[in-house]
């Protein structure tokens, strides 16, 4: 009898617990608060993800700043402004592999005109490239071809002006070394043989590491000495 009573009490307890649990679940499920809780949880996750994305972007900017800081040489700290070499970013920038280079279209067009010996037209396109994309790594080539175009069409003064600009802004570029050979030739054509020889000697000194430039400069120097 006692056992039966005990079983009955246990059964009633389980039933009551079950009913209470079901009531609680139904109340929670059908309650509007539950909906807003779920919304809130979704919004919280979204906000945290956005904060993570912002942190990643800030990090990317800092990485880019680090790359630029490493690439740009230390110039002018504590020095006189006029003694600092004028340089554009194009003089040190290297194109990133796989990156889309928008100045490439103008560059191709200009070079195509150059190959067809349409030097005046190619110079116009090279000028446009330089104006629109001043920090593009193709700017050095654009100046080089302009100077060469002027030289080939006999516009020596314009060629010298462009060569001067290259010497100031891209002194370390091998294209500057090559185009300075033209400078020597212009001077030689104006019966300025001594100055031409000086130019070739400077080219050998500054750009002598490049075998092609060295060979050409040596040949032209020999010619100038005769």
């Amino acid at each position, binding site marked *: 009898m006692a056992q039966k009573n005990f079983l009955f009490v*246990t059964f009633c*307890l*389980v039933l009551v*617990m079950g009913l*209470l*649990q079901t009531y*609680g679940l139904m109340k929670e499920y059908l309650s509007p608060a539950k909906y807003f809780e779920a919304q809130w*949880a979704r919004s*919280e*996750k979204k906000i*945290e*993800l956005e*904060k*993570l*994305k912002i*942190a*990643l972007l*800030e*990090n990317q900017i*800092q*990485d880019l*700043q*680090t*790359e630029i*800081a*490493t690439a*740009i*040489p*230390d*110039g002018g*700290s504590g*020095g006189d402004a006029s*003694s600092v*070499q004028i340089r554009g970013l194009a003089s040190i920038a290297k194109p990133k592999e796989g990156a889309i280079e928008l100045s490439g279209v103008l560059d191709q067009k200009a070079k195509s005109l150059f190959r067809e010996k349409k030097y005046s037209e190619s110079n116009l396109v090279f000028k446009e490239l330089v104006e629109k994309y001043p920090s593009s790594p193709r700017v050095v080539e654009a100046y080089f071809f302009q100077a060469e175009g002027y030289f080939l069409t006999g516009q020596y*003064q314009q060629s*010298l002006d462009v*060569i*001067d600009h290259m*010497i100031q802004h891209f*002194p370390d570029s091998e294209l500057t070394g090559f185009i300075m050979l033209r*400078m020597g030739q212009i*001077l030689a054509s*104006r019966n*300025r043989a001594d*100055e031409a020889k*000086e*130019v070739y000697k*400077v080219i050998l*000194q*500054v750009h002598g590491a490049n075998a092609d430039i060295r060979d050409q400069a040596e040949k032209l120097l020999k010619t100038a000495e005769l």
Partner: protein
Amino acid sequence: MNSVIMVVALFFSFSARATSLDYVDLPEGCWAREKFPCSLRAVRTLKNLKLKATKISIPPEAAIKMVSSSRMQLLTGYVWVREGDSFEILIEGQVARISGDVLVSKEDQKIVLQNVGGAIDFNSNRVFPSEVVPVGFENWYARPGGDGEMVRGVANLFSVEKIFKKMIPLMDGDKEQQVVALAEWRRSWAGRAEVGAQFYQEVINRRVAVVEEQKKKKADQKAQREREDQKLRQMFRAKNYIDQ
């Protein structure tokens, strides 16, 4: 009686609430799948996350980017690298290898390394290899300067109170156990003042010597460049060859 207790316990177990958001990761799910690179931002405190043999603890609002399972970049906040085993921290393109316990913090675009009980080794030619950060010391590192060398402070003694403020939220155990652990930490840093003076002198002497050498080299290069440019400009700008 036992069955009654069991039934009541079962009731409470069904009433348990669902867990809330602990962290977010990008790409989503990368952390659980251990797919790197993986960025993670802690929403709640994350203690003792295992990465191979290393554990890291991250407070809320800190964010990291795991480039690989043993190389980390700190994005925001701070992280406690615990029991580090050749764990690498990327700092402005350089790599600091950590063993033991080190706090890594990001403060005002600088990375601060606080050596609470480990070793820090920079395998880089842009940071003096012998300029380690001893136990009980901290140092900051920032973006490289124009000469490519990493800009950094001189390692100095860290403030114990500030360190404890960072460590306590990430420590295991109850309050009593934490007090014992903190006392242990304090004891382990006891001898650092004596190391300090000699260490500073060595670091400063070495830096001064290198800076002097670099200055001289730059001055020589600059003078050489100026001489060459001057020569070229003289030839170029002389009026007598600009004929019309």
